[in-house]
């Protein structure tokens, strides 16, 4: 089990929890699961398709895990992102972060999802009743320190 992955296979949280749990050293494990909602902006969503620039997406996830480790020394984090067609309720992303104490575990987990939304080359294609649309979020700039600090701020560090 790798700490980061971009995969068309269904995601599972449990292996990530095992991966970050440092065999007794880390008492707090926080995880995030993002699932496909049945609605968005008053649209009735039928399904999603995620497209990735996979080699760079993997590197971006590795960078994010490294950033989190630099921000909160000693934490362990892992993140897997799904690609392809996803039905309502399926997980598009699973994140786990572990630390000796809960504050850093919560912060690191939140940081990872915030940074994923900022810099990872993955795109969501939303299919809803009556149409489809590519969701366009953040302009990618991996060296934008202001954006990174905004992710730290949202992590409530």
């Amino acid at each position, binding site marked *: 089990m790798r700490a980061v992955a971009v995969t068309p296979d269904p995601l599972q949280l449990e292996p990530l929890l095992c991966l970050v749990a440092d065999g007794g050293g880390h008492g707090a494990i926080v995880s995030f699961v*993002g699932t496909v909602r049945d609605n968005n902006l008053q649209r009735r969503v039928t399904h999603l398709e995620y*497209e990735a*620039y996979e*080699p*760079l997406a993997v590197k*971006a996830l590795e960078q994010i895990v490294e950033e989190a480790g630099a921000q909160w020394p000693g934490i362990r984090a892992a993140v897997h992102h799904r690609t392809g067609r996803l039905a309502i309720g399926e997980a598009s992303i699973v994140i786990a972060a572990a630390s000796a104490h809960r504050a850093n575990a919560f912060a690191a987990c939140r940081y990872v999802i915030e940074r994923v939304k900022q810099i990872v080359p*993955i*795109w969501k*294609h939303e299919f809803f009743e009556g149409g489809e649309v590519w969701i*366009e979020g953040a302009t990618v700039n991996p060296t934008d320190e202001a954006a990174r600090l905004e992710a730290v701020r949202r992590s409530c560090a």
Partner: protein
Amino acid sequence: MRVTVRLFARLRDIAGTSDLARDVPAGSTAADVWRALVMEFPEMARYDSSISTAVNADYAKMTTSLADNDEIAFLPPVSGG
């Protein structure tokens, strides 16, 4: 020199393909390739201010100079998570 252009999401839809091979002048930058692409597909112009790029699967700046056989990817605003 010859480069491979990788397109994603809406850009891929506009171009009708995810991969393009293009001959560009020696010394071309990512921005040069982008401008040529916008000439070819005017609908892409709306991404002028939001486009990012990667060269050979590493983040790059639009000012990066390309080499023969480089793979250049254009990344519209992302929406993972």
